[in-house]
């Protein structure tokens, strides 16, 4: 991953985090990483845990950013969420897996597309 693409990813995650905070959510963790993979954002909103996968793109040339989340990736997100719950001993917590797409377009404000409860 080049510097530029990782920077775009990080920018996207920051944007989504502040979007969630605007909605009244508390960010608990960012880029929580274990061997199996990484959760971009963990937040709490109205007593419910949110696990958020953020996808950022600078062009639509390679399809919609959320299309990059195939069945395998979706399955991994689910396992990661359960792993986080296990590690933090939050069994029984109400949780939700969300996805967010961030479109960076030249000369335009970045645009967030937030899809709640996708899995």
């Amino acid at each position: 991953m080049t510097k530029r693409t990782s920077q775009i990813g990080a920018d996207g995650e920051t944007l989504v985090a502040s979007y969630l905070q605007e909605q009244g959510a508390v960010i608990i963790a960012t880029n929580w990483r274990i061997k199996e993979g990484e959760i971009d954002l963990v937040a709490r909103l109205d007593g419910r845990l949110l696990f958020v996968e953020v996808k950022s793109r600078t062009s639509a040339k390679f399809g919609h950013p959320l299309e990059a989340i195939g069945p395998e990736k979706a399955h991994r997100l689910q396992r990661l969420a359960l792993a986080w719950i296990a590690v933090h001993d939050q069994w029984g917590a109400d949780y939700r897996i969300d996805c967010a797409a961030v479109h960076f377009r030249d000369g335009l404000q970045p645009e967030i597309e937030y899809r709640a409860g996708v899995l």
Partner: protein
Amino acid sequence: MTLARVKSIALIGLRGEIVDIEVDISDGLPGYSLLGLPDAALLESRERVRSALQNSGATWPNKRVTVSLSPAWLHKSGSGFDLPIAIALLMAQGTITSRNLEQHIFLGELALDGSIRPIRGVLPALLAAVDRGITTAVVPLANAAEAMGLAGVKSIAVSHLNQVISFIEEGVIPEVNLEEIKRVSESPLDLSEVVGQKRARLALEISAIGGHHLLLIGPPGTGKTMLAERIPTIMPPLTREEAVEVAAIHSIAGALGERNLESRTPPFVSPHHTTTATAMVGGGAHFIKPGACSMAHGGVLFIDEAPECKPGVLDSLRQPLESGSVVISRATGSTTFPADFLLVIAANPCPCGRFNGKGRACTCTSLQIRRYLQRLSGPLLDRIDIRTFVEVPKRTELASTEGGESSSDVRSRVIAARGAAAERFTRDLWSTNSQIPASQLRSRFRATKEGMAFLHTELDHERLSARGYHKVMRLAWTIADRNGVTTPGLDEVESAYHLRQGVEIS
């Protein structure tokens, strides 16, 4: 609006069932699920619909798309649902705002550029639509020949997705050159091209009048195929209803070819002798296709080199010969196709083909000759009324520049004779002489005293079986109809006897 519904038709054999196509676009990861027992071709609709939408200026929703085809229990197959799925998607997205599609059905496969490709079975689908009160059908332009001129439903022939959108939104109906579509190509064959063959010509004519199945035996190159191919040209033209039925069967098989609703010449189907029983009677795992005998419905099924057929293939025809229809049962359900045809079988007299009763040039042993025609099973031969030899044309016949009698002359005699028979059977369940039941032949339909006496003598000398006796009687009635005689006399019975006994088999 994220939910939309349009209608299409699924076919089970010739029967059509209305299918509701519902599309729901909901938030979630981009994805596409297709519900309602789709087959492989239908599952691939996703990629076709997506590209077609994008390439005709519409957008593909990057959301979770659920497509449901109901009734859910019905197995659906083929690419004909591409167009209705695309239209429902456009409605769910709000690109199409018209909601007044309750009386419409959509049929068509999409190409990746958004153009609309032909599908199989448009005609039977439309016939079903008429029954269900559908008023408008959007069909592929390439299928317009089947759709135009069908009463009860207005067909809109389209060649591109954008035409469908502008039809729905603005009522723009694409123009279609009807003259081009409705043109009927007449069969170029004519009986006048056949040289000589007096006996075989008579057999053909009798066969066409009475619906008598026919066995032609003759050495290679004598014109068996040539004769058989010309039988449809001397049969009475199909009625409107028959023509629609025949076109519907050919439409399902995707073999309409030159035929359309206006084609009145009976079909001629000639499967190769290596054909399988499935190809003969119809079949298939998901999508049940009509076989050769249904394709020949209303016309002629010609089997050349019949003794070379695999065992069982010819005998698979016994049920359709008896009932005039074929029932095909599969795990997905059973389907009935009509199969009322005139069976014409051609065979060489022996494996080398040169046996003509005079013992010249033939290299086969007597055992080989005897076994060869025995490959045609007894029960099948029992259903064949006329057995005739096709002889090698003589030198004088070949040299003659005069053609034989033309098809139209023979056909007018056939139509007149059929009329006479139909008049006799107005109160009966059958309409041709070949269908008279045996008991009726012995009571209501006896020949004259002289005719009966001839038959009784043959019976006494054991030259005629009980079965043969009835067959000869039926043929005698057909010959009487042809000659304009009210009751078959000695002449008719004698000619019938010779047509029946023309070839000794087993």
